[in-house]
């Protein structure tokens, strides 16, 4: 038995009792967690209760490496600042990066909808090739299937990435302590709101554009400046910062306190969220990451981020505390506070 199995995830055993799969199960929130912890984990991982991360660090014949898998079902395929092809590469690289690894190789599978135009497909493959070159990742294999018209929203992409471990950094929810600082690499919600506006269903227009990117240079900078103080990292994709931190809170049994005024939010995101009644903390991000860093090294990590291109807007947004155990609290400058939980499914606009 390896070290990993010694960790006990706090909290009760989750059971999955729902009779069918709903959209909520893919949204990254509570429903997703129930599905993974209550159905997949017992069957796939047996009785070991481990924190379920995006990437796993494994040993094969004594060589340590990291491996991750991801799927990309974004609609529309192309949006201001990016596309599904770029996202597929950068998302995979980023999953590995926040586990403390450098992506080296990827395999990619495509599920293509019959009727997808070759021009569109070619553009996405080119986008993947460009993103892979920029991120120093080799795509070494893959698979393609075609499904009937009406399925696959044009195309679905799934990836598997493998990489080597970064020096001097080891992330583990167990090592999080009260007093540790919560760092965020940049403004929240850009990606999710960009996608929402690009879908056109809600008839909002904005100038928002979010360029998908590899966060490896930023993670590298943090590792070099403060590696020994980095406890945990996560890229807060679906479900947003709130979901990632709630997952951490459950995994380490501690509380997180966020300072609302310290959380960077662009006007374009804020305006759309206020109009639709959404909380920026629940909106998906791509190309950002959270890092929990010891108090002694937090400023070094922050400075490193802010001095790296793309990390200028990084902030310390909160800290780990004993209470409220297992939950995330947001406080304001004037002394008010509220719990922010992970959502059940995708955030829904509201009028009430």
């Amino acid at each position: 038995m390896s070290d990993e199995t010694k960790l006990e995830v706090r909290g009760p055993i989750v059971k999955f009792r729902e009779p069918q799969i709903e959209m909520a199960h893919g949204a990254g929130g509570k429903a997703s967690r129930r599905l993974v912890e209550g159905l997949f984990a017992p069957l796939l991982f047996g009785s070991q209760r481990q924190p379920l991360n995006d990437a796993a660090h494994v040993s094969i014949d004594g060589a340590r490496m990291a491996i991750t898998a991801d799927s990309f079902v974004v609609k529309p395929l192309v949006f201001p600042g990016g596309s599904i092809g770029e996202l597929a590469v950068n998302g995979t690289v980023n999953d590995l990066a926040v586990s403390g690894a450098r992506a080296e190789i990827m395999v990619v599978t495509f599920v293509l909808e019959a009727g997808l135009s070759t021009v569109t497909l070619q553009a996405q493959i080119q986008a993947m090739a460009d993103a892979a070159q920029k991120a120093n990742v080799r795509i070494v294999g893959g698979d393609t299937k075609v499904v009937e018209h009406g399925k696959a929203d044009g195309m679905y992409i799934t990836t598997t990435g493998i990489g080597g471990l970064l020096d001097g950094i080891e992330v583990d929810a167990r090592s999080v302590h009260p007093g540790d600082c919560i760092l965020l690499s940049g403004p929240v919600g850009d990606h999710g709101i960009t996608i929402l506006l690009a879908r056109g269903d809600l008839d909002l227009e904005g100038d928002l554009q979010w360029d998908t990117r590899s966060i490896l240079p930023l993670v590298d900078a943090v590792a070099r400046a403060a590696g020994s103080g980095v406890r945990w990292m996560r890229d807060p994709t679906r479900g947003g910062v709130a979901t990632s931190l709630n997952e951490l809170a459950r995994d380490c049994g501690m509380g997180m306190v966020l300072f609302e005024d310290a959380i960077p939010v662009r006007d374009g995101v804020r305006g759309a969220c206020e109009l639709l009644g959404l909380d920026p903390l629940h909106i998906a991000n791509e190309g950002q990451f959270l890092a929990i860093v010891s108090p002694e090294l937090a400023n070094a990590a922050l400075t490193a981020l802010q001095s790296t291109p793309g990390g200028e807007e990084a902030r310390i947004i909160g800290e780990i505390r004993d209470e409220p155990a297992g939950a995330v609290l947001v406080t304001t400058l004037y002394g008010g506070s509220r719990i922010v939980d992970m959502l059940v499914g995708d955030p829904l606009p509201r009028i009430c």
Partner: protein
Amino acid sequence: MKYVDEFRKPELIRKAAAEIRRLVDPQRHYRIMEVCGGHTHAIYRFGLKDLLPSNIDLIHGPGCPVCVLPMGRVDDALSIAAQEDVIFAAFGDMMRIPGTQGSPLEHKARGMDVRIVYSPSDAIKLAKANPDKHVMFFAIGFETTAPSTALTLVRAKTEKLRNFSVFCNHVMIVPAIRAILDSPDMRLDGFIGPGHVSTVIGCRPYEWIAKNEGKPIVVSGFEPLDLLQSTVMLLMQLQKKEAKVENQYARVVPWEGNRAALRVMAEVFELRPYFEWRGLGFISQSALRIKPAYEEWDAEQRFKVPGIRVTDPKAAQCGEVLKGVLKPAQCKLFGNECTPENPVGALMVSSEGSCAAYYNYEHRKHNRLTSLSLSA
């Protein structure tokens, strides 16, 4: 954000909170009801309860139109949408509200054409974009939202749009307040009045609360400073044993309301003789239906609906929580059988219902990790 950020200034909030502490009589326990679900949401979102002294109790009132919608009406709407070539269009608020066979989103997962719209005018756009389908707009809301539905129906009629109808569940705030005040268990000192409803109906409709019931009511905005200032104004009235209607939200609420909005409502809607409110029971003259002149756009006229009443389990104490007799956590089902993910009663179905808001934002502040949020 202009007209928002100024009313969230920390120094002013601290001043207002200090003023409240200065004004309260430490021997007295104040019970103030904020009627509107939007206020409930704001109070929790801004953590305002942390700023109030412990002898002020904010009771959440019945102004959550999603919460008070009987489950049978959700079933009715879904039965219309189950018909061929019907698109079910509704606000995001409605999407997770359970009917007896599941919520709109769950129906969508099973193949029903369900769309989220931000505005009733988006529903008309959907109808124009899908001429071979029928778009049914599930209209909910108090008087804030009713005029927009009304104007949308006027436009649909003017443009002779044939493939569009509205399933109307608009309800009215004053009858709900009356039901609260008529309750024998009620012990309230004053009201924080609904701010956005009042942009339509004005402040006059609340005068009977002050004159006949002797309770002060302050119509309030939704920013932290608005709610705190309204509390100051209420405390001052109570201190002087006064009972008046005051308009704290004057920058937006005209005393006489919005006559154009009231006109269009009168053109399109009439009062239902009675309507069932989940948690409160039947209330007469409390809800709107579409007038015969617009019956072609009335989903209840164009389609047959089952109209089956679905009652909540007796164990659900929503009525008492709604009236302020019980706190959410005092209901036996709270947090066990009844959670936001598996709501049993009215006040858990919407995120701003008293029980859901308390559950989501508050009650875990002081607890250790519980089993509540993880169990299926």
